[in-house]
């Protein structure tokens, strides 16, 4: 793994840039642990101070330091994206692999559930959840809901690969070697769908973070937990742009764009490397 990362860093420009951007974002989110101020506290610094040596990214109209606020926001936003991606990938893998390999009534049952989730309209459902849950709507609950809504399309993708894998002779070899269904799925098929999982992880994070920002900006989330969307929400509440407090909006926006671009570039370059076809191409040589 270390060798792969080194090779990627050395030879893949997209990976270098992507990794650099994500490294900056990660560094910022780690800094949250060293913040001098608790994230919820307001009026701990003078309000509306433009970026300076004392306050690198300036301060908000609520008397918060934008830099430290941003570190909390990035940490929570990334954590949110990872949680959604992790849970939804697990769901997509289990449903996709099982459905593709087993076929028959299991496939039909799982796919009818799957298709139901594909056609559910997202935004209205999320807003509805917010209005039902109100104050009990924590970011963890929102992550769970989004994970449940975000796996279906990728499960279909994985299923289509699993169906073609099932028809390949090595699956039969595994079966006749006495492997259980779980062993075949995990050991034989999983490596082939990993490229899909990796690239969709990045895409899924971009999707879930984007949606969370949207909801937060509109105020449909738990606004007391600082997230990137939450920061923009508060900035809008205080009409920061009109008041000339541009740094309150600019820095969260730059941070989120960096995250998106970084994740996208990582997805592209990792996909290039992990794809079994290009790996086999390296092995194969002539013929």
């Amino acid at each position, binding site marked *: 793994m270390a060798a792969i990362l080194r090779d990627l860093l050395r030879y893949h420009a997209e990976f270098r840039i992507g990794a650099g951007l994500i490294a900056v974002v990660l560094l910022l989110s780690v800094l949250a642990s060293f913040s001098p101020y608790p994230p919820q506290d307001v009026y701990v610094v003078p309000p509306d101070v433009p970026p300076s040596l004392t306050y690198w990214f300036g301060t908000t109209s609520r008397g918060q330091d934008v830099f430290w606020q941003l570190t909390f926001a990035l940490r929570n936003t990334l954590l949110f994206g990872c949680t959604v991606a992790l849970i939804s990938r697990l769901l997509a893998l289990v449903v996709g692999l099982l459905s593709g390999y087993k076929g028959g009534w299991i496939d039909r049952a799982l796919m009818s559930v799957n298709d139901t989730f594909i056609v559910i309209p997202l935004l209205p459902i999320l807003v509805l959840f917010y209005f039902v849950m109100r104050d009990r709507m924590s970011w963890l609950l929102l992550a769970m809901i989004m994970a449940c809504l975000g796996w279906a399309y990728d499960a279909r993708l994985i299923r289509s690969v699993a169906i073609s894998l099932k028809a390949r002779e090595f699956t039969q*070899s595994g079966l*006749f070697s006495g492997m259980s269904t779980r062993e075949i799925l995990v050991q034989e098929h999983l490596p082939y769908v990993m490229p899909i999982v990796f690239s969709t992880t990045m895409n899924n994070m971009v999707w879930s973070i984007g949606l969370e920002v949207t909801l937060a900006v509109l105020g449909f989330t738990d606004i007391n937990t600082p997230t990137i969307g939450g920061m923009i929400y508060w900035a809008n509440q205080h009409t920061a742009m009109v008041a000339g407090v541009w740094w309150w909006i600019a820095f969260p926006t730059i941070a989120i764009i960096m995250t998106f671009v970084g994740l996208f570039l990582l997805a592209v370059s990792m996909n290039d490397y992990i794809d079994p076809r290009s790996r086999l191409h390296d092995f194969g040589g002539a013929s």
Partner: protein
Amino acid sequence: MSDLLLDVCRVGKTFTRGGLLSAQRIAAVKDVSFQLDAARPEILAIIGESGSGKTTLSRMILNIETPTNGKLLFDGVDLATIRAGPRRLAFMHKVQPIFQNPFESFNPLKRLDRYLFMTQRSFAAADRRGTPEMAVDETLRKVGLSLGEVSRRYPHELSGGQLQRVAIARALLANPKLIVADEPVSMIDASLRVAIVNLFKTLRDDLGISIIYVTHDLATAYYISDRIMIMQNGRVVESGDAKTVLRTPQHPYSRQLREAALLPEIAADLSVRMDDFNSSTSSERQI
């Protein structure tokens, strides 16, 4: 127990293609019956062109496909009653497959010896002494390889002939009574083919394993098999002693196959070369 190893009893297989309204039914195998004697191991060749149903028939014998009519009895047990769990494992203990494409028989991303140890683990008899390594090595030596040549290797590091030997060794580790080989040498290079074909003879003579050899190649079928069945459009059109049937085919289709098979011995005699199958008999050519 029964004195028939395999009793194929009027089996048929119909595939349905298309949707509910435009369903097309294709009969791949129609009313095929034959038996294999438990006491007398033999090589039975199933010969046919693409679409003759020979592969579907072999898949039904392997219990990968279920027949739509008729039944298959292995050792007196109806294959339809074997679906999962220990009964399926017991069936695979006695019947093992060998596939057409040696490069596809093993997962290209995984090490080869894994399949051997997996099979050893699943089917090893309790009384077998020594470590799994010894058992695997012993079996590999039966096919002219050794554990040293195979362990820690990936499929792409071995030639097609070697891989097919590993596939045979894997099948042998289950200690089967019947091996179903679907075109096992059609993708093997000419210089390696004879050795593999000879190996099948050894398995029959020394280990007492019956082999169902599915092929389109009349010459190798003549060379190794005791009995042959010629299939056309899902039906058996002629069967019997291999040497007799191939020397003097009776059914018009068998005769057509026999005549169409390009046999190198004809080449030594230029008078029957391809040129003369065409209208012109002159040896002069326009330039």
